[in-house]
């Protein structure tokens, strides 16, 4: 049971990194990124492949951040020329392209068979709860650093400008500031966070296949930040926590609710999340933590 809870906590922390990245991009800057999972995948495959070449994880995980961040750069250049809705479509297309590329390029990624035997963090520590806790500690530390950095950004002149971009881009231009550079930085930073999340995921699960990187992952992250409160760091944290608790907790619900099969339960779960999303948008669009105005 302890191991199970630790596993949930680790996955929740990984999703929290993803949520923080999207909070920076959408919540603060207003960039509608529907391709978050693409950068998560790039991070996962980068770190997995490099570590299997024998590189230490202390190098491959930062490398995952760098490749995911670099992949965001051209997307950022495109974003400057597109309206919000088109940008959303482009990012969605990007993440699906990433998935198709890793499915097809078998020489590199082993295609649909995926990559097994990815080294764990702290492989030298014997398997068991000790190793789990050590892994959790590392991811928690990285998440805390990310939260700290985000809070610094929110309270800074940089944060003021990206929120101004979200509220009215043309007004900012009329005041002599070019939104372009800010948007690109935000996309790179948020995607680098997704890349780190992907690397942790790969080294925790130890086996990655293209099917783990479907758009549903992106939309889980969207759900988390909408439930928690868009544009607030605390919203990303609370929303992710609640979503994970529900997704995992509902596994046990099946023991209580009779006559629901495993498959039905999986669909039911997504249905309930969808319903929650609708209810939130109608009755509390600012999310649990948001008041729309103050940080």
């Amino acid at each position, binding site marked *: 049971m302890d191991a199970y809870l630790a596993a949930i906590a680790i996955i929740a922390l990984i999703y929290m990194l993803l949520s923080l990245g999207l909070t920076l991009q959408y919540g603060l800057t207003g960039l509608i990124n529907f391709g978050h999972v693409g950068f998560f995948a790039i991070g996962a495959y980068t770190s997995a492949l490099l570590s299997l070449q024998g590189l230490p994880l202390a190098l491959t995980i930062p490398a995952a951040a760098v490749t995911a961040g670099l992949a965001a750069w051209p997307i950022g250049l495109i974003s400057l020329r597109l309206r919000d809705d088109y940008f959303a479509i482009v990012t969605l297309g990007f993440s699906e392209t990433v998935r198709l590329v890793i499915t097809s390029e078998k020489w590199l990624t082993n295609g649909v068979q995926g990559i097994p035997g990815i080294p764990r963090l702290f492989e030298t520590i014997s398997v068991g709860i000790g190793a789990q806790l050590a892994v959790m500690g590392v991811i928690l530390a990285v998440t805390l650093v990310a939260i700290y*950095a985000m809070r*610094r950004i929110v309270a800074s002149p*940089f944060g003021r400008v990206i*929120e*101004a971009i979200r509220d009215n881009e*043309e007004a900012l*231009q*009329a*005041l*002599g500031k070019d939104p372009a550079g800010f948007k690109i930085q935000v996309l790179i930073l948020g995607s680098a966070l997704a890349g780190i999340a992907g690397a942790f995921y790969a080294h925790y699960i130890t086996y990655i296949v293209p099917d783990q990187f479907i758009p549903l992952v992106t939309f889980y992250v969207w759900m988390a930040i909408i439930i928690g409160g868009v544009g607030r760091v605390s919203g990303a944290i609370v929303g992710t926590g609640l979503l994970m608790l529900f997704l995992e907790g509902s596994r046990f619900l099946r023991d209580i609710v009779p006559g629901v099969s495993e498959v039905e339960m999986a669909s039911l779960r997504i249905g309930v999340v969808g319903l929650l999303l609708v209810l939130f948008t109608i009755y509390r669009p600012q999310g649990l933590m948001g008041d729309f105005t103050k940080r």
Partner: protein
Amino acid sequence: MSLQVTNISKAFGGFKALSGVSLEVPMGALVGLIGPNGAGKSTLFSVISGFMPPDEGAIGFDGRSLDGLNPAGRARTGLVRTFQVPREFAHLTVRENMMAAAPGQTGESLVGLFFRPGKVREEEERLAEAVSEVIRFLRLERVADEPAGKLSGGQKKLVELGRALLVEPRLILLDEPFAGVNPVLIGEIMERIRELNGRGIGFLVIEHDLEALTRLAPQLYVMDQGRILTMGAPDAVLADARVREAYLGGAV
């Protein structure tokens, strides 16, 4: 030295929004631009501020051509516009709206933000003081820490003016500063514009409320159907038969 608009034309499909518009605003002057709805005033502002490329013509400011500059680049030369429908940063407070406008902040770069925190803090303190002064000047103290989205239309116009002031403007293009503003506040805004003009900041003010603008600007341009009809002192302009016809449809 002035804002020099030369022979600007702009068409949307078959509709000529601007045909050969020329005007000049000397540095430090307060010039009005009037005309009935649809005369092309706001289109002209969009062209001058770089949001819309003209089909023909040239814009010069302070002896330099603006033609190759984007909107942000033009604002940085000291030519700052406001919008007809206020474009406040709705979720930022009035104070933050103005702080966001100030140029050259170290904390706007991520490197500066994380590696020069001392300098950022010092700049923020200085900026906060400058912003407080602007807020006092515009009599916005009571709403200074409210989100700008919650203000009244007139207050939002003042926030836009305040933001423009933080950019260190030399000429402000004001788009209908009195539209939808209650009469008491109109008087206030006019007073502020006069004071700022007294400090050397030039204004080009669009307004279709003739009466308000004739009280404010010693010199008026009149536009109708994409052309400049005439220009001159308010009395002379109002006496012009063409102006009366444009406004009153020939009824007088």
